[in-house]
């Protein structure tokens, strides 16, 4: 087991040391060995004395591993019974691009567990969120502490160059707020910003297809005036929400399948590829098609959404 963890490390170093075509080269960040979360007593002592490391994005690995991931993992294993296929590239930063759905971002939370538990180096998924997330008290705070940051090119490239695995949902609010009728039909993939970012950082793009999340809250309506009033992108109506109040916010226990597709390499592109709009749209379109095809295939192969 120990050997299996040692082998990828030199590769990771060479990958991060490679001189990038744009921007200054950055010294590689020190390797983070896969650590076991500390015991509860150690954890509490660290909390009381403020003695724990936080990175420049505000990511607090100790808090994430001790308090945030375990309950999510329980949901992952027992409620959605997530099956994961495919592999994630080791020894390099990677941009995981996935379909977005489900009214509330359960898909993002479950993908974070899938990446952490299936990545050969046990990396945390560093997701890019909308600025709405960071405007909200508590939510924005938890997002930063669990490793997320603002969806902007600067932050994403910085994380990728440091060798992190970054997650992005290019459909954005259009995807997460799509109606039940549109399930498993990818919405517009933004303006291909994720492809620009990956090209700039020279890291592979991992197309990720998530099946199951699109049925957890069948959104059949949208109370637009209420959404405007609350400053939200949509106010969903599902068969159970807002009819049953908070109970309606319990997601349906669908059976999930997360597939990490074949990584798309971007390090072979010419140096100024990130500014080539035609190439960027090609790469983005190719990734979108891969995800859509995988989704169609996986959905067709299901016998029931709950099994």
């Amino acid at each position, binding site marked *: 087991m120990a050997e299996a963890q040692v082998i990828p490390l030199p590769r990771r170093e060479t990958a991060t040391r490679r001189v990038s075509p744009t921007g*200054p080269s*950055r010294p590689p960040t020190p390797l983070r060995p896969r650590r076991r979360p500390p015991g509860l007593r150690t954890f509490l002592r660290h*909390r*009381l*004395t*403020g*003695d*724990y490391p*936080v*990175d*420049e*994005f*505000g990511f*607090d690995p100790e808090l994430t591993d001790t308090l945030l991931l375990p309950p999510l993992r329980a949901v992952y294993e027992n409620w959605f019974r997530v099956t994961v296929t495919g592999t994630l590239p080791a020894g390099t930063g990677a941009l995981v691009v996935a379909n977005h759905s489900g009214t509330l971002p359960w898909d993002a939370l479950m993908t974070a567990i899938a990446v952490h538990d299936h990545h050969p180096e046990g990396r945390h998924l560093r997701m890019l969120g909308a*600025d709405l997330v*960071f*405007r*909200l*008290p*508590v*939510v*924005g*705070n938890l997002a*930063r*502490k669990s490793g997320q*940051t*603002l969806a*902007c090119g*600067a*932050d994403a490239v*910085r994380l990728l160059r440091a060798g992190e695995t970054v997650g992005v949902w290019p459909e954005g609010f259009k995807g997460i707020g799509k109606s039940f009728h549109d399930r498993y039909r990818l919405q517009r993939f933004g303006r291909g910003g994720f492809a620009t970012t990956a090209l700039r950082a020279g890291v592979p793009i991992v197309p990720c297809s998530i099946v199951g999340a699109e049925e957890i809250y069948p959104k059949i309506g949208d109370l637009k005036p209420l959404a405007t009033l609350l400053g939200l992108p949509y106010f969903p109506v599902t068969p159970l929400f807002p009819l049953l109040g908070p109970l309606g916010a319990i997601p349906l226990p669908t059976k999930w399948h997360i597939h990490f597709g074949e990584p798309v390499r971007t390090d072979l592109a010419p140096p100024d590829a990130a500014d080539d709009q035609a190439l960027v749209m090609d790469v983005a379109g190719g990734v979108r098609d891969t995800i859509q095809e995988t989704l169609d295939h996986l959905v067709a192969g299901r016998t029931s959404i709950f099994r």
Partner: protein
Amino acid sequence: MAPEVVLVTGVAGQLGGRLAATLTAEPGITRIIGVDTRRPRAALPDRVELVTGGTDLHDLLRTEDVDTVVHAAPRPAGHGDRDRDLVATMRLLAACQRAENVRKLVFRSTAEVYGASPTSPAVFTETDRSARGRAVELEGYVDGLARRRPDLTVTTVRLAELLGAGVHTAFANYLRLPVVPTALGFDARVQVLHPADAVAVLRRATTHDLPGVFNAGGDGVLLLSQAIRRAGRVALPVPRAAVPAAARLARAELSPGLSRLLSYGRVIDTTRLKTAFGYTPGWSTAAAFDDYLHERTGITSG
């Protein structure tokens, strides 16, 4: 070009005073002229020629044949009169523009030029700059001077919040409160710079020709909640808009810029400082914070 006659503004302040004192150890510098509107509380070395009160800066620059001007006076927001600082800077820059013997300007700016907001990137590089604010206005004047005097070597250093033993900034005073009001539901990332590093950066900018803009901050980040825990203080979360009022009740003034920093946090990238500028801060954020704490506990126990 090695400086010979250096004029340092803000010598009554902590940074300007310490810079003037360290420059006396530089062999190539023949004269150091310290300028401020008030007399420094701590005595300066004899070699520093002190000029206080209303002097004609242009005359001073010309008659004393000053070749290097270090504007260390602008203080982080939350200190004193906003307009006085702006007008003083404008006067100094105008004098520099007309005095042709001035070859170099070192300008002390602050990371406040980046602002702090939920839509900001997590880490700022030198190419970013916010649209408004006093610090941005000041840098705008410096840009204007650099355009009109292309032969002038202009170095702008954007300093993170200063913290360490003996620092009395609004931020340091805020952390001294027995109960620290914080923004409910927010936890800012805070990066600080030890004054010793700030002085070293300004000194290097004075003695070397390093044109450009450079961020200066300690390595690493502390969360505000973490800092308060380390200080053994109690955080009192109040709604975000009420933080300045709550701090005022406890007699700590928070400028709008500082209270945004304390909600949304700010981190600056110091890669260029380490590579192009050639200085690596000796104090990390955590070490500078501990230095500040030790001094404080020393005072309360003795």
